[in-house]
């Protein structure tokens, strides 16, 4: 084993990249859950986003259009979930699971002809001045644009939830939908919008995997990232900034185990590959201290 082959600067730099897909998916789910809806279909929306983004990006040659396509694909799938849970009043846990199974099948079907193709990549962009700072430059300022989109989304979500009136209404709907309904807010409409936002974010996260991180399309490529995003929302106690911490913690774990694999640590590869999932469980056990939104997962039916 050769631990000296692990470069701490590169490790920290790739941490941000590894955390981005989960961060994107998790920030969307956070908004959905703050609106009182538990969508367990993140994995399905992510993988659908991954394939939609890949297909659009390969077709148009533009990764930006790919990400837009991914967001649209994720939002469309989320809309199905929204119709089922909000208008047809189905059980949210079961519908979320169905969404995941459906998304895995749908993505495999769409992606059939795209296996083994390479995705168009973002042109190498280097933030002038900031990117040239030694050590900090390569860690923070030399990434692809989507890394910063993720960070901006976290900040924007925090601002929206805590500094705007619409954010307050959304939180009210999540805390007590009957009271929000009595005050005249359109519970169902707000929730549908939140669900679609969540789907779009999950789609972006999935496309980040297929367009930037891997960058290829393979069946089932999200490999549980959507579920980890769900876990991170719980870990974060439904607070945007703590979500960032959770995603980086998880990204760090992933990158570290990949580096240890490459360095030839005397532990079999399979056990290292388990570590992110085990770490997620450990984190869930010791850190799930936050309070869930009051109406989370409950069915809203106006005429009660």
């Amino acid at each position, binding site marked *: 084993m050769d631990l000296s082959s692990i470069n701490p600067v590169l490790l920290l730099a790739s941490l941000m990249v590894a955390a981005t897909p989960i961060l994107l998916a998790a920030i969307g789910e956070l908004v959905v859950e703050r609106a009182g809806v538990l969508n367990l279909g993140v994995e399905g929306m992510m993988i659908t986003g991954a394939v939609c983004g890949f297909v659009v990006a390969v077709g148009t040659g533009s990764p930006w259009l790919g990400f837009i396509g991914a967001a649209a694909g994720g939002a469309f799938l989320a809309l199905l979930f929204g119709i089922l849970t909000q208008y047809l*009043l189905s059980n949210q846990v079961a519908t979320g699971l169905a969404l995941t199974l459906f998304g895995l*099948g749908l993505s495999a079907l769409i992606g059939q002809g795209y296996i083994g193709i390479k995705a168009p990549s973002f042109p190498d962009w280097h933030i002038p001045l900031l990117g040239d700072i030694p050590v900090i430059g390569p860690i923070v300022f030399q990434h692809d644009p989507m890394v910063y989109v993720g960070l901006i989304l976290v900040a924007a979500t925090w601002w929206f939830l805590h500094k705007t009136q619409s954010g307050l209404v959304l939180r009210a709907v999540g805390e007590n939908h009957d009271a929000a309904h009595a005050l005249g807010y359109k519970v169902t409409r707000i929730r549908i919008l939140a669900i679609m936002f969540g789907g779009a974010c999950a789609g972006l996260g999935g496309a980040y995997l297929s367009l930037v991180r891997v960058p290829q399309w393979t069946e089932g490529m999200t490999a549980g990232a959507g579920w980890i995003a769900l876990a991170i929302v719980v870990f974060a106690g439904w607070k945007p900034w703590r979500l960032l911490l959770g995603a980086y913690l998880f990204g760090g774990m992933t990158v570290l185990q990949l580096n240890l694999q490459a360095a030839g640590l005397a532990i079999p590869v399979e056990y290292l590959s388990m570590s992110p999932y085990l770490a997620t469980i450990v984190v869930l*056990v010791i850190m799930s201290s936050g309070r869930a939104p009051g109406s989370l997962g409950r069915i809203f039916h106006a005429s009660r």
Partner: protein
Amino acid sequence: MITLEKRAGPSKVWAFATPLLAVALTMIVGGILFAVLGKDPFETIRTIFLDPLFSEFAWFYRPQLLIKGAPLVLIAIGLSFGFRAGVWNIGAEGQYIMGAICGAAVGLALYPMESRLIFPLMVLAGAFGGWAWAMVPGILRVKFGTNEILVSLMLVYVAEQMLASMALGAMRNPEGMGFPGSRNLAQYPSAANLELIKDSGMHWGIVAALIAVIFAYVTLSRHIFGFQVRLTGQSPRAAKFASVNPARMILICLGISGALAGMAGLFEVAGPAGQISIDFNVGYGFTAIIVAFLGRLHPIGILLAGGLMALTYIGGEIAQSNLGLPGAAIQLLQGMLLFFLLAVDVLTNYRIKFGKGGTV
């Protein structure tokens, strides 16, 4: 304007009709999907849903139906207890893998000894493996309030890595010339899950699945535990007043589903699959979730739903080889089935009212 009015109780008629309606809708939308893919929709639907039973090669497919259906029914029966009581074990796939690993470990450890006791011992080990794997989310939920959905699912990925590690390392066939995968248990008479009646496909896993159906039926309709499960599902508050211990309920529900999934894994590895290999698991643990819901969490319903799902598997394989239908289309069809079921289920619990929605 269309409004929904909550029924006093679930409609008995619609409880039976919705799964059938969901199947019909899936066939229609599936047919459109096949047409889009450039296949003849009617021929494809017929191939998937009828050919395994009635075509001239049905004698070959019928045993396959039993082999595919048994693990689905066995796992779904276990899941149905938890789903009724609001305990969401969605990591059955992991429990299935761990059951197979533990059961196969016993068989491989005793190779080449011959004894009648080996196979029953393996079944016990398989059930234990699945049970133990399900106890992880169970104990974490009871002790720390950790969400069992996420933990049980994370453990699926851990189990998959464990399976790879076993196939490549500890359980690799010493006479396998370095190829991954264990010894073939199906060729080790004391450990093999043999066909009980020649060419019927009938093996011990199918017997176990039928026993599980009867056991679940009796428990749910006659035993105090079944009553508590139903009560917890219908009204958690009432269950509390009836002094149902929630921690105990969680552990028992996860334990039952884990043990049955583990047993399903063992029957598979000792019979149809034969060996521990990297790609041993094929998603039965997830499809069983569809089976459980499609069967309305009722034992008899699950038996029928398991049969239907096995039909789509086998029919899907036929459509794949005969009509060139992509395998993913079948996966999509199965997902669609669950979607439609959840969608039309609104009719069971609500009445649709047309006209002006009165005083809301």
